[in-house]
């Protein structure tokens, strides 16, 4: 009987396959030879299976609030995305990404030298003593505020950042804020053209892994925040060009080309993206805006022969929308010696 009691206590560990091989073997031997324990084990297995099939339900807000109050944790904002349990390698990758994003204080004063943090592996987490990051599983609601200047601009891995919020507390200064959830709630503050801030912004715009409304908002925000500034980092325009080229979401592409149109700097890369959009994009609104962007370049004398050829081709193309054709012709009319 004493053996049966001990066995029943180990059932949960047996279910979760947390016993060592020797104990697991002994437990199964006992269950096979003890009808009472076998009944109990089968019942527990069935209950476990049924629990696995139940949908995950969010507890009512009132109960959740009371529970959190009892354990001394402040209420989370309703928009914080719950952390989904993921396979271990993904967890490690994301933890490393958090460290890269949040552990920048260690690197203050060392930004002139390239810093390479491995995207995975516990060792890299331990190497950064100045970043008191708790394991992600225990810090879902924790909020951290980090200065962009203290972050390594190289984002390694592909951290799944969600619930992105932008703010420009004082429009008169150069400081902006970017907040997001990545196993914890992180707020990055810094100058809009700070390399790390620009890289983060580019990452948010390009991250198509999840179809959250974040990218649309990011592009809108970039358009409002960056375009009036003539010193806008070319990386912002490059990120928009990448979105314009690759995004499958037509609304996002429309926003990207719209933002690109107002960018003060136009590199060869963005010009090529505009030409490609005019040539191939199935959405007529994207093509119209691409023509407008190229017309702006034509007026400022920045049009190269590839762009002229594409505009000429569009103006001539019989099956193209007439409005696109006439806009292309108008753009070509702005070319002067």
């Amino acid at each position, binding site marked *: 009987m004493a053996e049966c009691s001990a066995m029943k206590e180990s059932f949960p560990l047996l279910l979760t396959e947390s016993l060592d091989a020797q104990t697991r073997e002994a437990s199964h031997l006992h269950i096979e030879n003890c009808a009472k324990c076998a009944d109990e084990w089968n019942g527990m297995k069935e209950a476990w299976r049924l629990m696995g099939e139940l949908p995950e339900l969010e507890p009512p807000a009132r109960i959740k609030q009371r529970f959190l109050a009892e354990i001394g944790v402040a209420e989370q904002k309703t928009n914080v995305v719950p952390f989904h349990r993921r396979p271990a390698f993904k967890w490690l990758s994301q933890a490393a990404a958090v460290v890269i994003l949040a552990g920048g204080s260690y690197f203050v004063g060392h930004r002139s030298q390239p810093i390479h943090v491995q995207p995975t592996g516990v060792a890299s987490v331990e190497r950064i003593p100045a970043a008191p990051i708790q394991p992600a599983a225990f810090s879902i609601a924790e909020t951290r505020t980090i200065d962009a200047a203290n972050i390594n601009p190289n984002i390694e891995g592909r951290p799944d950042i969600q619930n992105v919020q932008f703010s420009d507390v004082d429009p008169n200064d150069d400081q902006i804020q970017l907040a997001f959830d990545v196993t914890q709630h992180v707020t990055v503050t810094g100058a809009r053209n700070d390399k790390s801030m620009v890289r983060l912004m580019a990452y948010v715009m390009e991250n198509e892994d999840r179809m959250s409304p974040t990218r649309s908002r990011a592009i809108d925000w970039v358009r409002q925040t960056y375009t009036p500034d003539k010193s806008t980092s070319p990386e912002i325009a490059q990120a928009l060009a990448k979105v314009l080229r690759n995004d499958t979401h037509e*609304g996002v592409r*429309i926003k990207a080309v719209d933002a690109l149109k107002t960018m003060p700097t136009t590199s060869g890369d963005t010009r090529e993206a505009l030409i490609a959009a005019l040539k191939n994009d199935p959405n007529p609104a994207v093509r119209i805006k691409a023509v407008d962007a190229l017309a702006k370049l034509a007026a400022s004398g920045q049009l190269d022969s590839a762009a002229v050829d594409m505009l000429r081709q569009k103006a001539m193309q019989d099956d193209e929308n007439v409005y696109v054709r006439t806009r292309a012709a108008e753009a070509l009319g702005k070319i002067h010696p």
Partner: protein
Amino acid sequence: MKVPIRISSMTAIALFACASLLAAPVSHTERFVRDFPLDAGGTLWIEDPIGAVDVVGSDQDGVSVSVVKVVVAPEGTSLKEGREQTQVLMGGDAKSRLIRTVVNGSPAAKWKSNVAYVVRVPRATTVHITGQMGEHIKVTNIAGTVTAKNTNGEITLDSIDGPVTVDSVNGNIHFLTEARPSDPVQLTTVNGSIEVQVNGDSNLDWIAQSITGDFKTNLALRSPRIALNTMRGIVNGPGGPSLVTTAVMGDVFLLSRGGSPNEIRSVKMAVVRPAVPGPQATPVASLGVLQQQARVIETIEQPLVNGPFMYATKLGNFRIGEIRGLASIQTGAGQVYLGTVTGNCSVRSMGGPLELGDIYGDLNAHTEAGEILVRNARKGGELSTGGGTLHVIYAGGAISLHNGGGDIIVNQAVGAVEADTRSGDVMVTMDPRLHTQHVSVKTTKGNIVLNIGGRFAADIDATILTTDEEAAGVRSDFNGLTIKRDTFNGKTRVRATGKIGGGGEKIELYTEDGEIQITQQGVTH
């Protein structure tokens, strides 16, 4: 004291004179002639991005190239740089000769250069000319094939007997010959016009294209047909070579050399309105009188129309402040802006953005391509675009929105909302005072955000079909929804159903590869 003053005055004058001299631009002109052998039937290639090119066919052997190179700069150093960076290269052999102008200046260079060529070749030569910003390209008396291409500047081909291909962006094109053409001729310009003058007895298979321009001729044109922007007809009689003339934004003239300008008539008018008696005299076209006609789309602009406004045009922008009555607008392409319309409003555009302000009556607006912005659709209506953002700030009645690709945004809706887009996000905010209203939203790729008041009641049926197994699913600020996940056609299907506020009108939300958020107004996220 007088002497020093005199000296100082003279010094000042001298300095001023020197400064004036220094400030004056300097230039350098270089002229030279080169002769090369070229076989009869040989080929001449000329590339000159910055100057005029004249090629004349003659009965003499060989090529004679006369070059005038001019460099202008604000001072000597720049002049020297300009001379070095503007090079004339000549090469090839007796079968093929190449003449090139190479300019290596940056856009910021202070100097400007121009290289003009006058080239004499045997008449049977094949001539290929690529220009760019030169004043003109002129080819005369050639029996071989001629091709010419440029961006700006006139192109004139006179007395060419061989096949011709001309392509210009902003230049007018003149093709003139006393003879009856026997080879195909293809002339294309985007913003220029085209003038063709041939022998009055020529037989031609004429195809002319233009979006904004007209096709005019004083030759006998048999059974002309016009489809969209293209006209096709037989000149005089069948059996002639093809003449393809495309002037996207300009006019096309096909004239009898030496014919009467008073007999020139519009083919479009004749085809579209055959009942109009007699040819319409147009005293415009005669040899060499085509003007640069880089047209822009006509804009119909009025601050106020006191009554109904009905207008249909093939191409036109509209900018009207207020229409006191109904509005009915159709345009082949163009932008439409209407400030206020006190009656019903119907807008149809084959392409171009629509911006509509305060619309009192029923609204029906469609564009094949471009954005639609409506500030106030008091009675609701129906809006659609082939692609572009569709944005309604206020809809006072039921509104139906269809988008071929792009986002749909409704800032405040009082009536029912029906919205669908092929690819884009849909964000709909219902009036906060509403207790219930029907909403149906569908996007094949994108997110849906429905924002409703705290007292809103409805029966919710929200479905997400996604390839992302970890999709966050339906997020709601309201209790009462049951969420189920299953697999459908190999995809994950998340479906949220239930009643909010005790139930009411049906809200149907459907997205593929996106998220659905049902948010409560006033709740901070």
